[in-house]
């Protein structure tokens, strides 16, 4: 069984550059990749090199990075809370990040400096997890944490709706609204460099906790008896999830379903321990979001669909299929 998981991991890592390449050649302007790359290597500037480096490369990289971050966050939250429902979007981490970002848009902060919007999202994600965990300290049981998360999510959603209601002008309304739907289009390399270190830190924190998550699949008491201290490891995971989700929402808005569905799809293929699932969810999330973003670009129509719309539209039916046909996914 571990061999099957290893094969899957290799497969995902091989699929990733392939999809990155497909993403780089897709788009409204037809450019040939090889001449453009030769131009870049010879430091010649052409329209093709500008499209490649300033439009498509950041988009492709962000799709992969955001997918990887949401995937690994979902796997880590499911492992920590030992619940198949846990994911950053269902427990309100994404929504709270979005709420803070919406405030940044609402008050025009995002126009003062390009990094204020991502920063606001990051602070929002941290606020959500800290709020959830401080509630969880008073209340026992992971089911209660899930309910607390859902309440936080609903509150954040309502406050975003409030911001939309009182939007100062139609332009701000549209900006907040489109940003909420989630997309990685029209981003620059600035955004890539801004969130990459935060995401890498998040991945590292989560992967460092992989053995704790393995132990936790036998419950808290057994994890303790296997030599893992619950509180410090839980905090590592919480901060890791906040970094991953906050950075993801910061550059892409709220892209639903990836965090929930990626670990489940992978679990449907291999019976992986929680720790191994983290390793799988990293390329797994990247592959899935790249795939969705390629579909977005290939679909006909004057107005390009937002990425978040596609992930939810394709993700939900697939998830229902998993629920109906793979009942052994959940104990």
């Amino acid at each position, binding site marked *: 069984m571990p061999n099957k998981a290893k094969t899957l991991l290799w497969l995902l890592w091989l699929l990733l550059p392939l999809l990155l390449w497909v993403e780089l050649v897709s788009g409204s302007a037809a450019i040939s990749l090889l001449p453009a790359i030769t131009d870049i290597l010879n430091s010649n500037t052409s329209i093709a090199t500008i499209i490649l480096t300033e439009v498509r490369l950041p988009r492709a990289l962000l799709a992969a990075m955001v997918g990887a971050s949401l995937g690994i966050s979902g796997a880590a939250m499911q492992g920590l809370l*030992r619940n198949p429902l846990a994911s950053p979007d269902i427990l309100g981490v994404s929504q709270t990040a979005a709420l803070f970002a919406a405030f940044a848009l609402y008050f025009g902060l995002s126009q003062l400096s390009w990094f204020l919007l991502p920063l606001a999202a990051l602070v929002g994600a941290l606020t959500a997890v800290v709020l959830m965990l401080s509630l969880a300290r008073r209340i026992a049981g992971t089911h209660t944490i899930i309910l607390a998360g859902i309440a936080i999510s609903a509150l954040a959603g309502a406050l975003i709706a409030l911001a939309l209601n009182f939007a100062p002008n139609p332009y701000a309304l549209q900006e907040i609204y489109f940003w909420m739907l989630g997309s990685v289009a029209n981003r620059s390399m600035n955004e890539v460099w801004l969130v990459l270190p935060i995401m890498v830190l998040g991945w590292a924190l989560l992967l460092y906790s992989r053995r704790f998550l393995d132990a936790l699949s*036998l419950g808290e*008491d*057994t994890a*303790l008896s296997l030599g893992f201290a619950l509180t410090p490891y839980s905090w590592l995971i919480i901060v890791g999830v906040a970094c991953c989700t906050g950075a993801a929402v910061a550059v892409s808005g709220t892209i639903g379903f990836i965090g929930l569905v990626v670990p489940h799809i992978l679990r449907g293929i291999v019976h992986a321990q*929680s720790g191994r699932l983290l390793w799988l969810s990293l390329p797994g999330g990247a592959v899935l979001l790249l795939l969705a973003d390629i579909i977005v670009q290939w679909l006909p129509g004057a107005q390009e669909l937002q990425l978040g719309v596609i992930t939810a539209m394709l993700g939900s039916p697939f998830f229902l299929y998993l629920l109906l046909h793979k009942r*052994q996914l959940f104990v």
Partner: protein
Amino acid sequence: MTSNQTSVQHPLLSAHNLTRKVATNVLLDNINVQVFAGEVLGIIGPNGAGKSTLLKILAGVTTCDEGQLKLVATPFAACSANNKARTLAYLEQRPHVYWPLVVKQVVALGRLPHTNSTALMNANAIESALAFTGSSKLQDRLFHTLSEGEKMLVNLSRVLATEPQLILADEPTAALDPYHQLLVLELFRKLSRQGLGIILVLHDLQLAARFCDRLLLLHQGKMMSEGSPASVLSTTNLAQSYRINASYDSTLGTVTVLGRL
């Protein structure tokens, strides 16, 4: 193994004057426990007597308010978490596996206290743990599709995969049929004869009388009696703690329960 030599003088695990309170409620009052290599110690007592709490404190899963705990000769606080986890294995009551895992993966989780990566992946330890409980044929099955009896054997294998010197198990025979109750307790006894120290929380007095070398009777958080099954399972002790009319037959080593008091 130097630890086996030292354990001739030292108990594997010893607890002195353990007290545990929740608000003004005293759950455990001044408890003393010692377990030596090669013996099975049974903790018995009616519901709510504090058996599981005591076992959790001994396993280091819960803390006590007062008292000293020592693993061989080292105080608990001075043991590293990994070292303690390698020496002392805890099997909680009906442990739950939260994700669909294959039996072999569940047993492999018992290797987690071995932090160095070759020791962590030690396939021999996993295979021999499965073989010891006769569960090798189950290794590729999904854990949650097993029967309660099979689950218990796999959980025991998981604990053995750690290669501990000491096993603490909370009601390992709960939810098992008589065949598996006997099988599991025979395995524990066999382990003790191989030099491990075993502490079991047991509800079934018959099984406690038959498989434990020594018993500790708890009543309302206090030690009511400690010693051989014959001395602990006296009619007076059982009447006072369990509120039952029972008698112990020392020739057969069995307890006959006649009724409630």
